[in-house]
Each structure stands twice: as C-alpha cells, then as structure tokens.
C-alpha cells in the first residue's frame, strides 16, 4: 500500500504514518456525502416545506390557537420538569460521588435505565398505574383526579424520560474532582450548605448547565412517552411534537413543518450553547443521550 509514490502525500508525513492522498480524499468525500444525506437534507426539508406557501401561511401555522396551546403546554412541561430533575441530578451525584456505600454501582446503573428503555414503555407504565383500568385508576376516578389523557400525565411521562440527564453529566465530573476541596472548607468551619454553594457548585457549573440544557431539549422534544399518555386532545393535551404529528397526519404539511421548524431552532440553539459551554469548560462534554 505504502509505495514510494505515497511519499508526496499530504503534509510531508512519512508514507506509512498516514493514508495516501487518494484514500484521504475518498474518506472525506464518503463522510461528506453521508453527512449531507443524513443530516443537512433532513434539516433543509423542514424549512423548505414550512415556507412552501410563503411567510403568511407559515405564520398562520404557528399562531393558530391550537399551535399556541401546544407551545404553552410544551413550555409548561419544561418549566416543571427541568427544575425537578435538576435537583434530583444534583442530589444523586452528591450521594454517589462523595460517599461510598454498598450498591453504589447498581444505583448508578439504575439512574441510566430511562435512557435504555423505549420511550413508549416510559409512557405506558403510567397508563398501567393511573389509567382507568390501571392499578390506581378506579381510586383516582372516584376522587375525580385525571392524570392519563391530561396534563399531569404528560408531565410525569416527561419526568421519566428526562430523569438521567443532569445526574449523568455530573457524576463523571464530580468523580474526577474528588472530595478534597469540600473537606478543606468544612475543616475551616464552613457548614454543609456553604460548602456546596461556594465550593462544589462553582466547580460543576458548566457540566450542570449542560445537563440542564440536554434535559430541557428532551423535555421539549419528547414524543413517544408523551404520545401514549396524552390522548392527543387538540388545544388541551397536545405538546408541540404531538401537534406536529396530528397536523402531518391531517396532510396539513405547511403548518406541521412550521411548528417543526420551531423545534429545529430549539435543537440548533441547544447545539450552539453546547459549543459555547464546551469552550468555557475547556473540556469535551460527554454527549451521549
């Protein structure tokens, strides 16, 4: 492979130390074509379809009452879910990284479970618990509490699927940082909360923000789990992704892609903020979902 002709390759490298220029170019082209077909075109389609009938139709799509109700419900869900799972993530990371106890590794694995379970199952377990034929269904019905096919169900299902995000950003970070700084603060007379607020929190802030960002993105975009519990009631229990689905299935493509384009912009903002946070944190943030 590395014949002498390869010596003219690239940036004056020893031939065997890198691929020849042809292999290089071929690999870059393969990567670029794959990137184009699987990432760029799907994005472009959303905006082209959304604007197919002009700006007025686009605007009508995102400002009709059902769309506005969907946007409101999505924002409400994120506002409720993100703080709860942030507090959980901090508590879980503190327990798991600052102390040793039996079953710690099992606990870390269990925190990851919602990621490895189908979102459909994440929604359906709450139907089994709170739905009318479910375990607590008759009792809830008798007390006139609606969870399934209502807003609380949407929120609980979203809590399930976004539970691990903050914890799994913080755990590796806090493991690396150890406990020396906190112990020093405590020995100098700080109490527990002071230690957490002045020592731990500044140390983990970029990782924490990144976890919150991912949690928020998923809370806004969750589809499978929410689809099972929401009942798709227009104007009441439809989140933005569910509204996109209903419109698409009604062949109302312009409005569907218009609402979808808002979600694409949210995804873009998430990626841009991630890049900014990475530059600030000066380390590569672990991504996986």
């Amino acid at each position, binding site marked *: *492979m*590395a014949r002498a002709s390869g010596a003219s390759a690239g940036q004056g490298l*020893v031939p*065997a*130390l*890198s691929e020849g220029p042809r292999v290089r170019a071929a*690999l*870059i082209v393969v*990567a670029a074509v*794959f*990137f184009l077909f699987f*990432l760029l*075109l*799907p*994005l472009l*389609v959303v905006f082209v379809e959304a604007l197919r009938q002009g700006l007025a139709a686009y605007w009508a799509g995102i400002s009709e009452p059902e769309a506005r109700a969907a946007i409101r419900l999505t924002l409400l869900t994120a506002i409720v879910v993100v703080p709860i799972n942030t507090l*959980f993530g901090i508590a*879980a990371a503190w*327990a*798991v990284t600052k*102390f*040793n106890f039996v079953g710690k590794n099992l*606990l870390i*694995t*269990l925190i*990851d479970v919602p990621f*490895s*379970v*189908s*979102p*459909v*199952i994440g929604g*359906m*377990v*709450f*139907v*089994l618990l709170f739905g009318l*034929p479910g375990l607590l269904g008759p009792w809830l019905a008798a007390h006139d509490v609606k969870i399934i096919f209502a807003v609380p169900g949407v929120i*609980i299902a979203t809590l*399930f699927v976004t*539970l691990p995000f903050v914890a799994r950003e913080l755990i590796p970070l806090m493991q690396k940082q150890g406990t020396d700084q906190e*112990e020093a603060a405590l020995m100098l007379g700080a109490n*527990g909360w002071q230690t*957490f607020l002045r020592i731990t929190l500044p140390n983990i802030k970029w990782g924490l923000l990144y976890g919150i960002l991912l949690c928020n993105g998923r809370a806004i*975009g*969750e*589809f*499978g789990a929410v689809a099972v519990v929401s009942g798709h009631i227009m104007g009441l229990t439809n989140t933005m*992704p*569910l509204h*996109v*689905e209903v419109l698409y299935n009604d062949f109302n*493509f312009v409005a569907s892609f218009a609402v979808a384009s808002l*979600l*694409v912009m*949210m*995804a873009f903002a*998430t*990626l841009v903020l991630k890049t900014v946070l990475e530059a600030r944190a000066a380390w590569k943030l672990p991504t*996986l979902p």
Partner: protein
Amino acid sequence: MASAGRRTWTILPGLGLSLGITLTYLGLIVLIPLSVLLVKAADAGAAKIWAELASPRALAAFRLSFGTAFLAALCNAIFGFILAWVLVRYQFAGRRLMDAMIDLPFALPTAVAGISLAQLYASNGWLGYALAKAGISVAFTPLGVLVALVFVGLPFVVRTVQPVLEELDREMEEAAVLLGARRREILRRVVLPPLLPAVMTGATLAFARAIGEYGSVIFIAGNMPGYSEIVPLLIVIKLEQFDYPGATVIASAMLIASFILLLAINVLQARIRSWQGG
C-alpha cells in the same frame, strides 16, 4: 479513584438527605412503575405470554425491529468510524461545522426527524424521487425503518470513537514505522485494536436506542402489520385498543432485552477504560 476507594469515612454531610431524595424519587418515577409492568406481564400467565409473543404479527414486528436495528447499528459502525476518523485526523473546510452538527440527531425531536425523513424519501420527495426512478422505494417499506434508525443512531459511534482516537498515542505509530511496518499492518495491529471496543460500544448503544425508537420511524415506515410495523408501534396500537395484557407482555419482553443490552454496554465500557488506563 484508588484513594477514594480505600477511604471508608468522610466528614462531608448530606448522605442521608441526598441518598434519601435519590432513592425515593428514582423509586417513584422509574423503579415502581417498571416493576408494575413486569408484575402485570407475569400475571398474564404462561399461556397468554406465549400466545402474545408467538403470534405472527408480534413475531414479524420483533424480526423487523431487531433486524433493522442490527443493520442500522452496522451502518453506523462503518460510517461512524469513517466520520470519527476524518474529524480527528484530517483538516478540511467545514470540519468544525460537521463536528458540531454530529449531535443533531440527539438534539432534534424525534417527531421532527420522522416527518422530515418521510418527506425526503417519499416517492415525490427530493431523494425518494431519484431512488424511485432507480426502482428503489424507501418510504413505507422496511428500508424506510432502516433509514430512520441510521439517522437516530448516527452520533453514538462517532462520539464513542472520537475521544479514544484523539488520545491514541501517535508515537506508537511512529515507532511502528521505524520498525519497518507498512500502513496496512500499522492499522491492523496498532491503531484498530484500541478502537475496536469503542466501535462496539457505540454500535451497541445505537442498537439499544434503535429497538425502542418510535417517533422518527412511524412516519416513514407506513406501519403495515407484518411488514413494516415496529414493536414500539405494536405496543401503542394494543394500548389504543385497550388490549392491556397484550401490550404488557410485549413491552416486558422489550424491557428485558433493554436490560440485557444495558449490561453489555457496561461491560464494553469497562473494557474501554482498561485500554485507556493501561
């Protein structure tokens, strides 16, 4: 790690509070609901479980979900490896944009990916039209399911291989050159062995994600029972028909498959860490 492992006491406060919050919340939101699912499935009885899982419709859905997920993981292993290699080792225009956008399938809501891919590969869509002329139909076939799953799993292999490739010691390759090795030998004996566990981990993560995927698939798949109907959709349909025992049995089978995969991923990640550590 080693020093933390030896120390069994600490003066840090808050173990009771933080562990209490963690266990209570995790129990209420995840562990109890999932146990209810498994208990209800067991309640259905062996005959019902067998009848559900062995029904032709469920078998076809399992075959489709696991088969396409496997092929998608394979595609992602190959193209993810090429993307990671190109991003780490080469310089070219647009490299940083490409790097930043690899995470898009994680950030993009699955329903948006679903309608977008369905539109793109429909017989009158940008790519679907050209493919239809070549006699290939993607939308409303198992091939459409595969396309959606490749999209969803794209970042996993790239993001597991990238850090390992970045930390790979170039001096090892230089030493191999000085010892007279040819490029092909160096790739096979020096470069690939430490990367293999990372590729395997990424592909397994992509596979685990793909078998449960719902939003990005249902729009492009056409959802014909026995032909292009995935398992998560079958669960949803059974729920909508109030066939709770049927949905419970199938969901439990998926849940157990997910747990096995989670275990495999943990083992693979431990292997990567041992490569990096020593």
